C-alpha cells in the first residue's frame, strides 16, 4: 500500500495494471501469501475488466487457479535463463581462467628457473652479492637443442668476481631437474643422474653482467 492510498487494496488494483512500484509489490506479495480473499478479488477484477472490454472470456471455476497453484507447488523454482546462461558462462570462464593461470604459472616457473643467467642480473639480491653459492658447485652444461632455454654455463675467469650461484630447493629443484632431464635424455644422460645432482643455476656477478652488457653494445 502506498502512503497516499486511502484503502489497503488500492495497491493491488494498481499492481493489476502494472502501476505499482516493484519494491512495494514485493512487500505486498510477502504479506499476501495466504490471503485467499485477495486472490479471489484479483481474479474478479480481471474478469470484470475482460467483460468490460468485451473480450471472449470463459469465467474460470473457483477452484481452477488453486489447482494450478498446487501443480506449481510441486515444480522446481524456475530459473531465469539469461542469468543461468551468464552463470554458466561465468563458471566456464572461471574454469578456463583457472587453467590459463595454472598454465601461465607453470610456464613462468619453467622460464624463470631455467632462464639464462643473463636474464636475471637485475636482481638486487645478485647485484649486492646476497646470493652466494658454494664454490664447489659446477653449473650443469646443456645443449641448446631443446626449445626451453637451458642453464647457461658461465666461464669463470681467474681473478674475476666469483660467479653467484642460486641453489634450488623443493619444488624449484624438481622443476629444474625435470627440465634438464628432458633436455639431456637425447644425449644419453639418464634422468636418474639428473635427479641425483643438486641443480643450481649460475648467475654472473654484477661486474660480469655489466661487462656482458657493454660487450653487447
Amino acid at each position, binding site marked *: 500500500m502506498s502512503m497516499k492510498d486511502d484503502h489497503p487494496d488500492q495497491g493491488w488494483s494498481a499492481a493489476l495494471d502494472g502501476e505499482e512500484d516493484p519494491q512495494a509489490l514485493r512487500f505486498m506479495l510477502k504479506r499476501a501469501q495466504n490471503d485467499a480473499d485477495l486472490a479471489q478479488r484479483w481474479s*474478479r477484477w480481471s474478469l470484470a475488466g475482460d467483460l*468490460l472490454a468485451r473480450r471472449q472470456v470463459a469465467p474460470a471455476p473457483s477452484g481452477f487457479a488453486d489447482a494450478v497453484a498446487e501443480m506449481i507447488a510441486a*515444480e522446481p523454482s524456475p530459473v531465469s535463463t539469461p542469468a543461468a546462461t551468464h552463470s554458466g558462462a561465468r563458471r566456464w570462464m572461471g574454469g578456463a581462467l583457472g587453467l590459463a593461470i595454472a598454465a601461465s604459472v607453470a610456464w613462468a616457473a619453467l622460464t624463470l628457473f631455467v632462464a639464462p643467467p643473463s636474464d636475471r642480473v637485475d636482481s638486487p639480491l645478485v647485484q649486492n652479492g646476497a646470493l652466494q653459492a658454494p664454490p664447489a658447485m659446477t653449473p650443469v652444461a646443456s645443449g641448446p637443442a631443446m626449445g626451453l632455454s637451458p642453464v647457461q654455463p658461465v666461464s669463470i675467469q681467474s681473478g674475476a668476481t666469483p660467479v653467484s650461484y642460486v641453489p634450488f630447493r623443493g619444488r624449484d629443484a624438481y622443476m629444474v631437474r625435470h627440465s634438464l632431464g628432458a633436455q639431456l635424455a637425447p644425449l644419453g644422460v639418464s634422468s636418474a643422474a639428473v635427479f641425483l645432482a643438486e641443480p643450481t643455476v649460475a648467475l654472473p656477478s654484477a661486474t660480469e653482467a655489466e661487462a656482458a652488457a657493454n660487450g653487447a653494445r
Partner: protein
Amino acid sequence: MEARMADLDDDKALVERVQKGDTKAFDLLVRKYQHRILGLIGRMINDWAEAQDVAQEVFLRAYRSIGAFRGDSSFYTWIYRIAVNTSKNHLVSNGRRPSTTDVDTVENEHWSGAERMQEHATPEHELVRQEMERSVISTVEALPEEIRLALTLREMDGLSYEEIAQVMECPIGTVRSRIFRGRDAVDRNLKELMP
C-alpha cells in the same frame, strides 16, 4: 488485439518476481489471465472439461519456461501462443484436426464470432457469462462520471495511469484511487454471480 499502450509493462514486475522464485506472483498471473486463456482454449476445443485440463497444462508449461521469457512481447501474448500450441497439440494427439478458422494469431483475440463461442460453451456457462457482462456494464454505467471515465480509459482503452491523468487533468494518485473505487463497486455485484 487492440493496441494497449501499457501492455508490455503491465506484468513486468510480477514476471520478474516469478523469475526470482515467487510462486504467489505466478498465482496472481494465473488469476489475471485464466478467464481469457479458458475462453481461447474453449474456442479451439469443444469440450469444457478438456479445455480446463489443457488450460492447466498451459499455465504449467508457462511456469516451467518463464525463466526464458525476456519480455520482448507482453506476458499475455507469450502465454497466448503457448495456449494455441498446446491446444493444437492436444487436438492432434486426440486425432482431431485443429481449427484453421481463427486462432492462429494473437490479433484474433478479439475475434467477433460470438456465435461460435456460444456453440462451444454449455448453455449454462454462456448464460452466466452474459449475466456477468450485463452486471459489469450496468454497474459501470451507474458510476460517478470521473470514476467511470478513469476505469473505462484503463480497461477499454488500455491507457496508463499517467496518460489517464493527462486526459482527466488530475494527479496520478487520483487516477489510482478512482480506478480502485470503480473496481470495488463492480466487484461487489460480480461476486454474487461467480461460479
